[in-house]
């Protein structure tokens, strides 16, 4: 067993456990904070998969941005004074089984599929190459997504600030 | 004008609509009357100039008063109108019923302009159906009838009008959609070059062409198309078991609309059989024929039996229509010359007779405000003229010799007897039952001790006489000289008979 495999095992257990806590915790804040660990674990996977830059983006944007946003959201939409914000589930068993069965479908399908595989994956720094790609092949999405972010920002502000009904 | 006479005839009623909205609303009925009468008058050259000796039907160059323009060239859809023996009498019937139904609408006093504009639209659409020779044009006219009819029943009808109107609309649209799909499939798999020109299609079929397509959901193409088309038209006829909309629609519709419904609309189904459904698929027709005859007999006997049980006069007549339409189907199904000619004659005769019956029911309904057969009694002594007129209509409905209904039923039965003896005899039972329900209801309404409630009932007034008299004259005249009408279509229908029975 190679070292990366050990890391993989670790991250797998780590991510699935934390994700389960996110999913099944009944305290909203617990979920929100635990999500940070999930995202961190994901970054670990990315590193294992040769995506050093992506892992960094994951940590900065996702863990640092989105997750913080979610925590803020949790607090803003609940009673801030209360430490516990409910994150209860309902139709639990049924949901659980339908989720699990869906996963079973996915796994069966994957199992049946013969993927074309590379001889061996490469793990080397990708930042430079990604930069080039972003400014050449992916210049258009790169530009367009800026509009997306702009619209998202302005729009969110707008909808929150909208006048009360008159 | 003669060169575009069909267009004029079809669209003249539409010209009435703007006029009608321009004038005060109490003038609406006069505008409508003027429009329908004018339509009748400008159509006279058609009946005079019609060449009775050429069959048309499957011969493109034998259609008369043809108007043919490219309409949607990309699709090969044409504005193609023309008539042959098959359509000419139906046009006559439609024009006639149009005028009479206008008279029958004289008492409409709710949204006159809306009523009469819908009425005129309906009239134009009905005429269009009978002259269109392009499948798409035909279908458009066919469906255009639906929404005026919906409103005419729905707004101006009886207490359960909404139900009846939507039921009518649903049934007919259901059939219509099937028809449309079949038309498209027929277009796609036309023998030879694709076309919507039904005469051209027929010409190719009669020259040996066959609609060949892939199996549809595991069933042979031609059979499926045939059956779907059949259902589409059968709903209009209506044929058991698609008939249940008819009693409801009749009961709820205002008098004039019942008249049109029974007089013209039902004929479109059988017209469709003769023009499109059967001749296009002669082989399937041969396969389907026994079943068709069975349906016809069921229609006749079943309709008559149901009519016996009805308590509402209009419903009784509606079921009698079902029974009578069964005769038409019987004649067409037998497809012998007499049978098919008789069917066509019956289409005309049933149009006039049933129209008269509904007009008469309308007269009594206007006065008594109900139609319960058992709610009357002894009216013959109070309203003798009305009773006499009714007896004429009833006797014509029974098929008394000397009145028009007899000749057509005779021809149908004689024709079908050549091919289906037992069915014909069973259908003959329908005639007996017909006498039963007609006389029984007549007796309950007009005979027996006078119902005191109605001792001051007034007899028919002048407008009603004007709307009834022409029908009476036609019924009697055609009983004596049916060939006055038969001569128009005989050649064409003999031709169809040859197409169907090679």
């Amino acid at each position, binding site marked *: 067993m190679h070292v990366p495999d050990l890391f993989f095992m670790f991250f797998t257990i780590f991510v699935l456990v934390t994700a389960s806590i996110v999913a099944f915790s009944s305290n909203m804040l617990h979920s929100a904070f635990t999500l940070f660990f999930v995202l961190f674990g994901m970054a670990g*996977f990315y590193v294992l998969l040769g995506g050093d830059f992506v892992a960094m983006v994951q940590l900065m944007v996702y863990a640092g941005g989105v997750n913080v946003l979610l925590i803020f959201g949790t607090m803003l939409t609940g009673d801030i004074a209360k430490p516990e914000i409910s994150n209860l589930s309902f139709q639990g068993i049924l949901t659980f089984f339908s989720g699990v069965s869906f996963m079973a479908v996915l796994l069966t399908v994957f199992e049946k599929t013969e993927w074309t595989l590379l001889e061996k994956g490469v793990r080397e720094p990708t930042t430079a190459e*990604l930069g080039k790609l972003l400014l050449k092949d992916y210049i258009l999405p790169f530009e367009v997504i800026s509009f997306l972010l702009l619209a998202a920002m302005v729009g969110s502000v707008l909808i929150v600030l909208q006048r009360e009904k008159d | 004008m003669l060169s575009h006479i069909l267009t004029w005839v079809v669209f003249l009623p539409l010209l009435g609509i703007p006029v009608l909205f321009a004038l005060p609303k109490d003038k609406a009925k006069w505008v409508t009357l003027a429009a329908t009468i004018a339509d009748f008058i400008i159509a006279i050259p058609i009946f005079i100039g019609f060449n009775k000796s050429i069959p048309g039907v499957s011969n493109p160059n034998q259609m008369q008063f043809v108007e043919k323009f490219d309409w949607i060239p990309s699709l090969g859809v044409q504005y193609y109108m023309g008539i042959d023996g098959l359509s000419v009498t139906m046009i006559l019937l439609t024009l006639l019923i149009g005028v009479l139904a206008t008279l029958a609408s004289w008492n409409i006093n709710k949204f006159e302009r809306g009523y009469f504009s819908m009425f005129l639209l309906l009239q134009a659409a009905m005429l269009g159906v009978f002259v269109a020779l392009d499948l798409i044009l035909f279908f458009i006219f066919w469906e255009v009838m639906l929404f005026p009819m919906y409103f005419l029943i729905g707004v101006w009808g009886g207490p359960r009008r909404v139900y009846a109107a939507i039921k009518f609309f649903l049934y007919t649209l259901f059939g219509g959609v099937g028809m449309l799909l079949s038309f498209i499939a027929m277009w796609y798999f036309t023998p030879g070059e694709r076309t919507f020109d039904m005469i051209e299609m027929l010409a190719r079929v009669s020259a040996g062409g066959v609609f060949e397509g892939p199996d549809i959901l595991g069933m042979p193409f031609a059979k499926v198309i045939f059956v779907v088309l059949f259902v589409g038209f059968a709903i209009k006829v209506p044929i058991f078991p698609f008939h249940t909309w008819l009693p409801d629609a009749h009961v709820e519709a205002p008098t004039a609309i019942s008249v049109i419904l029974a007089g013209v609309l039902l004929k479109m189904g059988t017209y469709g059989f003769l023009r499109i459904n059967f001749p296009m698929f002669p082989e399937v027709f041969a396969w389907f024929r026994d079943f068709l005859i069975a349906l016809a007999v069921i229609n006749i006997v079943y309709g008559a039996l149901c009519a016996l049980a009805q308590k509402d006069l209009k419903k009784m007549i509606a079921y009698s229509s079902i029974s009578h339409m069964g005769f038409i189907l019987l004649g067409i199904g037998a497809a012998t010359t007499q049978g098919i000619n008789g069917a066509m004659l019956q289409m005309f005769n049933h149009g006039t007779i049933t129209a008269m019956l509904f007009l008469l029911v309308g007269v009594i309904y206007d006065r008594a405000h109900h139609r319960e057969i058992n709610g009357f009694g002894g009216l013959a002594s109070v309203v003798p003229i009305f009773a006499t007129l009714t007896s004429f209509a009833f006797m014509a409905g029974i098929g008394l010799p000397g009145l028009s209904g007899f000749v057509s039923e005779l021809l149908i039965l004689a024709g079908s007897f050549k091919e289906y003896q037992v069915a014909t005899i069973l259908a003959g039972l329908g005639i007996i039952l017909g006498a039963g329900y007609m006389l029984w209801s007549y007796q309950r309404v007009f005979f027996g001790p006078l119902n005191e409630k109605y001792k001051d009932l007034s007899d028919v007034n002048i407008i009603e006489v004007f709307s009834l008299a022409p029908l009476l004259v036609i019924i009697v005249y055609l009983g004596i000289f049916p060939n006055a009408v038969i001569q128009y279509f005989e050649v064409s229908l003999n031709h169809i008979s040859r197409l169907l029975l090679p």
Partner: protein
Amino acid sequence: MGLSAYLMVSAGLFALGMIMFISKKNTIGILMGVELVLNSAALNFMAFSYFTPSKGNQLDGQIFAIFIILLAAAEAVVALGIAIAAYKEYNHVQADELISLKG
């Protein structure tokens, strides 16, 4: 560890995300489920980028993953904005109580 191991992890995350999505009462909780789903998709892209040959650049998958992260951010912004607006309107964001629109 091979491709299928990663796919299993991503399938697991996907299923957890779905479960959250279907079962959470709090809107923010549902959003978290969405994040899990998006992460599973990104993980897939990363894994495929690493294990399978790519027609274009081998890093296409990684680029896609980056964009997924950005999209997630944008979506989260909008979703939270709307959630807060809704909170102002109804004083809660419990999905099971937001049922005035139905039928």
